[in-house]
């Protein structure tokens, strides 16, 4: 990507700006994006691949990040859910245009614990909880009415609390590489890649 000139400042990223732990640095960058007023700063593109090596990618919202990895929630029967079932690896990328920054992550993926998925589902608004029951994600519908009818049905079925559907839950991407990309003038971007090495991380500057 080309850093737009004359619109943003030319903001360097130097080796001494880095932290030992890329998760900590990621948190700092996410907080910077929030402070800068980036809309949906936790939106990330999640790339998965099927067993034949055919990739697909879509945006989802990051719901948590810690030493275990980057967590998001979805319908396990969706395309990404099915692909992660057969090929449990993902790539992630965040783009914060206003800061000329990207972070990308690769790593193996595991399902969140049942308790973790329950806890997150319980915090969702009722509409979204009902939507999770009503939608057989990624399946072909005859029309929008079919979806709205299902929503009416599940709303009647769960007049009070809505339990988590068994086909819905979290995934955690355990980072093995994390790259921090800072756009710079003349396409001379700063890029640093962290790669897991034993218990720690090896850090390299990459050519832009």
């Amino acid at each position, binding site marked *: *990507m*080309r850093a*737009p000139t004359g619109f943003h400042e030319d903001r*360097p990223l*130097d*080796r001494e700006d880095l932290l030992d732990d890329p998760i900590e640095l990621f948190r700092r960058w996410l907080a910077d994006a929030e402070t800068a007023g980036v*809309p*949906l700063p936790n*939106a990330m*593109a*999640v*790339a998965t*691949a099927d067993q034949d*090596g*055919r*990739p*697909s*990618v*879509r*945006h989802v919202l990051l719901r948590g990040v810690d030493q275990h990895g980057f967590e998001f929630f979805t319908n396990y029967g969706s395309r990404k859910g099915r692909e992660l079932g057969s*090929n449990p*690896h*993902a*790539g992630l*990328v965040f*783009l914060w*245009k*206003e800061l000329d920054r*990207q972070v*990308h992550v*690769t790593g193996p993926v595991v399902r969140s614990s049942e308790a973790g998925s329950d806890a997150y589902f319980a915090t969702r608004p009722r*509409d*979204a909880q*009902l*939507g*999770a029951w*009503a*939608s*057989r*994600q*990624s*399946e*072909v*519908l*005859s*029309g*929008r009415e079919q*979806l*709205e009818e299902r*929503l009416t049905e599940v709303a009647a079925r769960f007049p009070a609390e809505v339990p988590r559907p068994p086909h819905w839950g979290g995934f955690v991407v355990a980072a093995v590489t994390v790259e921090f*990309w800072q756009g710079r003038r*003349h*396409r*001379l971007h*700063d890029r640093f890649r962290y790669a897991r090495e034993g218990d720690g991380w090896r850090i*390299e*500057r*990459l*050519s*832009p």
Partner: protein
Amino acid sequence: MSDKPDLGVDPEDLAPEPMAQFRRWLEDAEGEGIHLANAVALATVDAQGVPSVRHVLLRGMSERGFEFFTNLESAKARDLAANPRAALALLWRELDRQVTVGGVVEPCSEEESDAYFAARPREAQIAAWASPQSRPIRDRAELMDRFRRSERAHPGDVPRPPYWGGYRLVPDRMEFWQARAFRLHDRIRYLRHEDGWRLDRLAP
């Protein structure tokens, strides 16, 4: 999302050709003043089947597909050499819209890559010579040193480096996603068939 109108999308409203529909949405995004409306997440898969994704800027599109340019020795180009299948996702947060694409890439012609390279600013042309993309370098000083040497080597016109060029992603699947209330988003998928495109509504 609650402060925005709940805009619906129906298959009847969409263009029969997905590239035409894509153009409409891209124009809407540009009309909305979205910065870098052409930034796209590009997913590739390495020889072991492991996916990775980064952003590039769409530099052109035709009925045939989407064009982007890169260093042909970058990580994404190495992936594409081993497996030409790729996927794209564009998110226009201000419009609650997303487009996703799957397909196969083909190299742009030498003429197309030359023409696009010639249109780039001089500094970006020099940078294409100076940067061994995705390879480790010692520090920024090394990069700036390479940049200055490339600048001296090309005092006039800068030719396109042989390791730099374009790809065109030819879609076989495109999906248009419009967020709606209650998480009941509209998703319309185009699938390529022998004699055109089939449109389906997908569950959100």
